[in-house]
């Protein structure tokens, strides 16, 4: 696991974060539920909580689907290529490429992964939320924070590398027995909370 330069994180005074969807996207409840599940995965192993709010402007985390140049200097490139990006704390912006074929259940066990250009939405959401919370990319291929994903594949379960990283920033979930271990910088690589495996 890694962090952004300077190790930015959400302050301890604001661990109950709100999130909202860009109103112009008019997302359905089933799409919004994907993001809710993705947030739950990080909440399960940290003291952070995530609550949807209707107010996009005041939300801590702002989620939107956009195509091409959408004004942040990081234009999307159409189908495939870059899929999404999110900014480090406490910026809160999370953008997804509106030109992708997003699937709500990307389990492609019955298909050849190379035969489709579909991208599993929840897999990307879990990854980008990691960035919103302060994690950078990881070289551990099994981790959520590994930078690439194969089309037609699904990876949504936090690996021990992800959990160790996020718990260095925020500590474990005080309400969960399975994630009570909190790692420090000195302990990295030697401690495994075992949560979510």
């Amino acid at each position: 696991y890694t962090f952004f330069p300077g190790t930015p994180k959400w302050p301890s005074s604001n661990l109950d974060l709100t999130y909202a969807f860009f109103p112009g996207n008019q997302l359905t409840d089933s799409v919004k539920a994907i993001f809710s599940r993705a947030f739950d995965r990080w909440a399960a192993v940290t003291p952070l909580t995530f609550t949807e709010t209707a107010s996009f402007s005041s939300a801590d985390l702002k989620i939107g689907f956009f195509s091409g140049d959408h004004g942040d200097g990081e234009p999307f490139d159409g189908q495939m290529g870059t899929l999404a990006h999110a900014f480090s704390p406490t910026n809160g912006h999370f953008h997804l490429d509106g030109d992708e074929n997003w699937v709500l259940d990307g389990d492609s066990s019955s298909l050849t992964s190379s035969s489709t250009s579909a991208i599993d939405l929840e897999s990307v959401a879990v990854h980008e939320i990691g960035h919103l919370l302060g994690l950078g990319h990881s070289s551990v291929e099994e981790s959520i924070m590994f930078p690439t994903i194969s089309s037609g594949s699904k990876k949504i379960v936090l690996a021990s590398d992800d959990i160790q990283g996020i718990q260095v920033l925020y500590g474990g979930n005080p309400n969960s027995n399975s994630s009570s271990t909190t790692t420090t910088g000195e302990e990295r690589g030697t401690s495994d909370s075992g949560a979510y495996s």
Partner: protein
Amino acid sequence: HFFPNITSIPPSFLPNATTGAWNAFHNFAGCHPGEKVDGLAKLKQYFNRFGYIPNSPSNFSDDFDDALESALKEYQLNFNLNTSGVLDESTLQQIVRPRCGVADIINGTSTMNSGKAASLTTGHFHTVGH
């Protein structure tokens, strides 16, 4: 475009799977330092985009120069590939995969394997903390 599952995607949406944004990079298979190949500038733009070539000139050349070789080796290290500095098939397969738009190297700080201490990545050195 949202679909409940993969099988619900209309066939007309699928042919684009072979025309991804970076699929043309497969044409560079086997390229090595010292060569000049049409289109290699776009690969340099890719590495610049994700932080492996830090400074962006007004336009990149098609030369397989030192900057590209260095970027390629750092990429291969980060993605657990053979750090050959050559555009082998396994490296290209990784490069063309869809990915997150956040750079792997930010403000010159490499965060993945290449930014870690040798003792953590190779196991060849034994260190004692003081």
